[in-house]
């Protein structure tokens, strides 16, 4: 085992610095910005809205559609030609599968909820950042969800099982495996699991254990991003024990003209 200390000095289970904010794109019904290290994803939710072509419509529930894209200047080398690459299409699909289990669109037959995620800059863990951003954007849009989904990549770099690999770690000499994982917060169910590289079963199990703790950290950030808009007190400082200062009067029956 050659990789004894991580290239950026992090501990095995330490994630890169993260930043998350909800409601960043005014035109969208819900939106979010999610940054982990140098990977940055912007997500916008539009919907439920009318779905065309008609043959895609489902009379039992709304359709969830994810669209993943990297901006042309977001790759770590040459410019990325715009257009829906095969890689982007596959990521769009696994993103949808990662979010499907928690989204409840039974109240929106024949309609669609579109999620667009675009990345201005990347440094590995892109599909995970996209999913984490999309989950915040969905909740911000008021789409009914039974749970939150949080995502982070784990893996093994030359014998060291660690969380949140950077591009340099993914391309490290020696045996490397990159394992993007998305986890439901309540049940700890895994809704995204892919793997690239080589790994033993023993280390895979270790990696998945790491994933549970790592996605929990992402969850805390997602929760904060969603609630901080409403929980700030008048001066904009601090927290009111999670309570909103929404006055109850707004809920009364006589709030009609």
């Amino acid at each position, binding site marked *: 085992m050659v990789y004894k200390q991580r290239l950026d000095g992090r501990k095995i289970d330490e994630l890169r610095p993260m930043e998350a904010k909800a409601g960043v*794109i*005014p*035109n*969208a019904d819900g*939106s979010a910005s999610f940054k982990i290290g*140098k990977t*940055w994803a*912007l*997500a*916008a939710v*539009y919907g439920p*809205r009318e779905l065309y072509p008609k043959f895609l419509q489902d009379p039992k529930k709304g359709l969830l559609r994810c*669209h993943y*894209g990297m*901006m*042309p*200047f*977001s*790759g*770590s*080398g*040459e*410019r990325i030609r*715009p*257009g*829906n690459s095969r890689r982007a299409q596959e990521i769009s699909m696994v993103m949808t599968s990662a979010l499907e289990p928690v989204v409840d669109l039974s109240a929106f037959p024949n309609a669609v909820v*579109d999620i*667009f*995620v*675009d990345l*201005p*800059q*990347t*440094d590995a863990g892109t599909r995970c950042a996209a999913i984490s951003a999309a989950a915040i954007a969905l909740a911000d849009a008021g789409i009914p969800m039974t749970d939150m989904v949080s995502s982070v990549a784990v893996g093994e770099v030359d014998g060291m099982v660690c969380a949140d690999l950077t591009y340099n770690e993914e391309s490290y000499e020696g045996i490397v495996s990159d394992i993007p994982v998305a986890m439901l917060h309540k049940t700890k169910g895994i809704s995204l699991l892919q793997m690239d590289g080589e790994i033993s079963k023993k280390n895979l199990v270790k990696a998945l254990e790491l994933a549970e703790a790592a996605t929990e950290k992402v969850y805390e950030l997602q929760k904060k991003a969603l609630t901080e808009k409403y929980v700030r007190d008048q001066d904009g400082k601090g927290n009111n024990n999670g309570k909103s200062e929404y006055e109850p009067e707004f809920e009364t029956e006589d709030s009609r003209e």
Partner: protein
Amino acid sequence: MIINKDLVPELASQGKRLDNRRLDEYREPILVETDISWTAEGSAKVQIGKTVVMAGVKLSIEKPYNDTSDEGGITVNAELLPLSSPEYETGPPSIKAIELARVTDRGIREAKAIDFKKLCIEPGVKAWFVVIDIITINDDGNLFDASALAVLAALKSAKFPEVDPETGAIDYKKKTDKSLPLTKEPLTVTVYKVKGKLMVDPNKYEEQAYDARLTVASDSKGTISALQKGGFHPLTAEDISQMVDIALDKAKFLRGKLNQSL
């Protein structure tokens, strides 16, 4: 749903706007931030009111074109991301995106803002080629002006990446402190004609209700490098003269905002 379509011209004819702005007033805030993407050689994010646009510059080394063997070149591309508005769909660039890219391109190219000869590395063999991508983040109107501002800011702050002297390979992870050979700084201002009155910086509602528009690219000396008339109504020569005056004046204003941020 198109709302307030008749109200915009009605108010304009009285010199008024929906949000109480003057006809010649830009929205607030106008913010310019550079180096927003670490993977781009140059990048910027511009906000005008609620409109937000990003621009990114990527450089590569290619063989020059046969008829300009001692020159590099630029290309401008624009993407109206579906994430920025419910009006945009995934797929190839719409005519709106193409027009935005081409008009912004001409503003830079025709101003000879970048000395293509200085981009040459070895005549006939290799030269630097600059690709600028305009990416919309939130479209609340006036993408023309926001994009031109973002592109200029990105070009000004761009740096060449390191090139391995032996292999000639570009190391995108390392930036030199050498800037692009920018000789001029063109900016675009689009002036709209609504019911005989001229206005700037329309929001998304105002953009659905105008008669004609004129996009004017100019440099800091007031030399015009590109014009584009849009909209379905004709403009008189008098209109054009007035619109150009307004555009030159507002370009100064935007230039001030740019310099404040850099």
